[in-house]
């Protein structure tokens, strides 16, 4: 994992995960009701169908979303064009590329747990299990999340400067062709 493209992929997963969690945790729970899939306009229904396909329509993760569409997508579906763009970004971020979807979901779970996102933690935990990660694997990610949540606070309390940031080799390759 020395190439920068892996880190760009990871950063996009972390960012879009936080974006989904902000909406789900902040606006869920009745603050802003999601669009009802049964009465959604055609353009929204089309995106909802893609989302159901991506996450599986009868999984614990899908149910956590308040039906067959995970909560944050239902909430932002009040603007169909916005939903379509956000969904395209989410799908791109989580699709297998340099990093596997399984690994990306582990990243999303760890970040959701770290940021205390009730929605994201439960959703990505369910996704991890749906993707075949066992309890041992889940515990591995919890362990990494917990121990590094300790290291980071120790480092911040003592205001340590990074002395490991430059030990990785620099990726001198150019910008990849995103259409490839």
């Amino acid at each position, binding site marked *: 994992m020395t190439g920068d493209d892996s880190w760009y992929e990871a950063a996009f997963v*972390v960012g879009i995960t936080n974006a989904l969690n902000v909406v789900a945790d902040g606006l869920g729970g009745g603050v802003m009701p999601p669009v009802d899939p049964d009465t959604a306009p055609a353009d929204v229904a089309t995106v909802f169908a893609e989302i159901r396909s991506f996450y599986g329509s009868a999984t614990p993760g899908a149910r956590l979303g308040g039906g067959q569409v995970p909560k944050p997508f239902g909430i932002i579906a009040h603007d169909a064009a916005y939903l379509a763009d956000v969904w395209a970004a989410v799908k791109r971020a989580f699709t297998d590329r340099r990093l596997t979807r399984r690994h990306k979901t*582990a990243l999303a779970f760890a970040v959701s747990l770290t940021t205390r996102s009730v929605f994201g933690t439960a959703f990505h935990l369910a996704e991890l299990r749906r993707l075949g990660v066992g309890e*041992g694997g889940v515990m*591995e990610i919890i*362990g990494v999340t917990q121990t590094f949540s300790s*290291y*980071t606070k120790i480092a911040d309390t*003592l*205001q*340590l400067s990074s002395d490991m940031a430059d030990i990785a080799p620099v990726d001198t390759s150019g910008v990849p062709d995103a259409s490839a």
Partner: protein
Amino acid sequence: MPTVRLRDASEYPEPARRLFELSRQWFAYEFKEPPAMSRVMAWDPHFGGPHGRAMKRAMAPGEFSRAEKEMVAAAVSGANACTY
């Protein structure tokens, strides 16, 4: 600027210095001095020892590889807004 004076490895007692060798093996990198966090954790081996073992157990290859977990650790550090 750290809130404490980070001691050089040579200032630590011998049992603590053994932790630095474990640290060197873990990172597989020749640091001029052990990483700051290693020196912090060696301040109290009764804390740093079990903490480090818990971390190594979590980071060991299992269902996820060590590399995958290093990236998870980096993401967690980022979410905690920690630059270290």
